[in-house]
């Protein structure tokens, strides 16, 4: 039982990274119709950014959280303005390929500058300890990550469902053509939404920095799992991204706990089952399936 609780917490923390990043991927896809391959690289940049910030200025985790997130927002805005924008009218495959090229570029750039070995990063002050609940001892940082990402996902949810900006973005996600016809300037929201999605990936990276190894390749497998997450959740669906993110995190953690070395295969088995039973994903709309 103790082990089970620990795996669950691990899974929720892991799922938090996936959910946050997948949320960014889903929002970008919804509004721009772009599947951002470089999402994993942006997640990596977030973590590397936090490590470099610590090394260069001594600013720790709590400062890195807002600074790197804002920096990644700017990076996303630039990427959209300079590159992604030119291919928006074409088939989404072209932006998929474009962002793949950007991924190769970024990963090898970081590798060339900072090497392949992991950069050092510590658990943030105040979250180094463990929390004992009965007989179970849990890492307080994992609790923080699980809670923080749930709260953040809820905050984004509120932003999207309870504010005017959210309504516009949702309308654009739902049906960009019709929103335009109703007088919403969808084009104006494209750039900030892209930046927002990239910022979420960067934020997930900063959150990951204290627990995982920070290196140029950390986003390489992350992006594949993110794709599995959005296929499971349904690519157009924001709720689907979050739920599937946590689901995949739990599957991976239980898998590591109980199934050992083949645990990562479980995620893809889950994906295969979803494709067989509900091709449009758990929360995807049926029409997008065929």
């Amino acid at each position: 039982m103790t082990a089970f609780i620990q795996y669950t917490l691990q899974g929720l923390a892991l799922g938090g990274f996936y959910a946050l990043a997948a949320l960014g991927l889903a929002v970008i896809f919804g509004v721009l119709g772009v599947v951002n391959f470089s999402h994993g690289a942006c997640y990596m940049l977030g973590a590397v950014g936090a490590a470099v910030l610590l090394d260069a200025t001594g600013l720790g985790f709590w400062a890195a959280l807002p600074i790197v997130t804002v920096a990644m927002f700017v990076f996303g805005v630039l990427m959209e303005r300079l590159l992604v924008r030119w291919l928006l009218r074409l088939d989404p495959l072209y932006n998929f390929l474009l962002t793949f090229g950007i991924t190769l570029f970024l990963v090898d750039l970081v590798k060339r500058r900072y090497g392949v070995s992991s950069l050092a990063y510590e658990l943030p002050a105040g979250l180094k300890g463990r929390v004992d609940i009965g007989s179970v001892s849990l890492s307080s940082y994992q609790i923080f990550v699980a809670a923080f990402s749930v709260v953040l996902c809820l905050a984004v949810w509120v932003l999207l469902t309870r504010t005017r900006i959210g309504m516009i973005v949702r309308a654009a996600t739902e049906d960009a053509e019709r929103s335009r016809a109703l007088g919403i300037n969808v084009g104006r929201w494209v750039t900030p939404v892209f930046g927002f999605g990239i910022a979420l990936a960067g934020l997930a990276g900063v959150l990951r920095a204290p627990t995982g190894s920070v290196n140029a390749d950390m986003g390489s497998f992350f992006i594949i799992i993110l794709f599995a997450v959005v296929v499971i959740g349904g690519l157009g669906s924001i709720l689907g991204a979050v739920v599937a993110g946590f689901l995949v995190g739990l599957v991976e953690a239980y898998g590591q706990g109980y199934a050992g070395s083949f645990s990562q295969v479980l995620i893809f088995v889950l994906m295969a089952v979803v494709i067989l039973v509900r091709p449009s994903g758990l929360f995807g709309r049926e029409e997008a399936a065929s």
Partner: protein
Amino acid sequence: MSQQLVSKVDVELPSEPSLTARRPFLRWVGLAVGLLVVLALPWYIYPPVAMDIAAWALFAISVDLLLGYTGLLSFGHAAFWGTSAYTTGLIATHVGLPFPVAVLGGAIAAMLLALPTGYLAVRRTGIYFAMVTLAFAQMVYFIANQWRDVTGGENGLQGIPKNLGGMTDLINSDAFYFYYAAIPIILLGVLLAWRIVNSPFGRVLVAIRDNPARARALGYDVERYKIMVFVLSAGLAGLAGGVFSVSHGFASLQELVWTTSGKVVLVTVLGGIGTLWGGPVGAALVVLLEDRLASSGFNGIGIITGAIFVVIVLAFRHGIWGTARNGLGAWLRSRRRTREDV
């Protein structure tokens, strides 16, 4: 917004269908020149590199069969290339059969893997197809990484022998001879792709690419055709991957990793989608470039290839072969027009 995803894939194809369609003579000249280049390659280029170019060329053609002729972007073709590389290596090492037989075994293994993958992947189209194939390829990578007893895990399979009956000593003595022993397999693959594209089956594929709903209405089982071409494409990728692993004498996880899937898409797009001959052009450029960069000690090849990819997708979506063909076609047309005017 999602509407465009469920419809066909609007890849920009060369506008001119074929220059050689009405000029059979030109076609034979082109074929002869191509064959001559292939046979002369190891005289001018370091033979193992020439072999790499040939293998990557067939690999790119296998991707183009899906992307250019059926409108499906497979972002997981490394799974078939790599599965065949490992299977070929295992057969050659443990059974000791001549290497062409081992390569054939590898290609069959790749096709067997493609059957369930294709069955699942064709349920989605467009960008989803790319993501699903990518994810399944990653699953194969994980399995190969964990299944150490068979695949050697991170060390890979080493010391794959080049067996060929009485000629074993000859092809082991110099990569130059191995090139000529292995090139028929690659040419066979290219011929197969050419036959597929120029067959009634190939016409149905193009119909599916251009208008799946109409192809369905005409009574074609679109999903079945897609699965069939997916399996055939995996077989070609398998032939290429098998030759590659025998040529190098090892099969490693590098063959299965998703950057390999991405690299072959880069090669295909660089050469020109939907042209078949673009694959070899792209392969020659990318392999030679990487060889040059690696031997000059530059680390960070991805910075260059990534930047090339970005430029191509932004500015040269027809690729080298496609752009050249369109340019030549436009020139021929304008010349004909001036002649008619006179």
